[in-house]
């Protein structure tokens, strides 16, 4: 426990805002290029956020625990 005071939270939690910013603003990824293996950017960008978000949650879990 790195945050002994009640109600306190570790600032590492803020990295969990990244998927919200990255995915909820469509103009960030509403385009076909650059494509990877024929997949338009629109698709692989969203899919890449699946493992990326898992990783961010893992980091918060490890650091804030």
């Amino acid at each position: 426990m790195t945050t002994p005071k009640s109600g306190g939270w570790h600032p590492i939690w803020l990295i969990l805002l990244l998927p919200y910013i990255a995915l909820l603003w469509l103009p960030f990824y509403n385009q076909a290029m650059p494509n990877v293996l024929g997949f338009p950017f629109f698709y692989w960008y969203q899919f890449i956020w699946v493992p990326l978000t898992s990783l961010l949650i893992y980091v918060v879990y490890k650091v804030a625990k």
Partner: protein
Amino acid sequence: MNIDAINPIAMAVFLAFFAFVTILGFVASRWKRGDLTQLHEWGLGGRQFGGVITWFLVGGDFYTAYTVIAVPALVYSVGAYGFFALPYTIIVYPVVFAIMPKLWEVCHRKNHITAADFVQGEHGGKWFPAAIAITGIIATMPYIALQLIGMQVVIKGLGVFLVSFL
């Protein structure tokens, strides 16, 4: 029912998994027998589920008829709009991670079983927990209806045409 329309491979896969899951269900019910007169045994598996079983349960929650039938159908019909499902699923997880462990901890400590139990335990009262319980039941109904329609589509996809039950 038109026999010629049945795809034998798809039907074989369907029947094999149906049999497998049915047998697995009977095996599981004998594996760790619980006292089903206890509500927490019946509803929560006696609170014995660890990380691995929970992982499979969450997987089962996600890969439903909605995910494998409705979302692809939406993508086929309207294109990339159907992709709302992907960001939505991704951003649910940080919320779950932030809330659920705390909820679990309180429910485990105070023996709450449902969301309504939790609300009653934390806030007391009679009507507020009742409203939570009723909201939960009503909100689940369209989702169950969606699953039934999804199953109907799956069975039709196998080439079996039955009279619609919905």
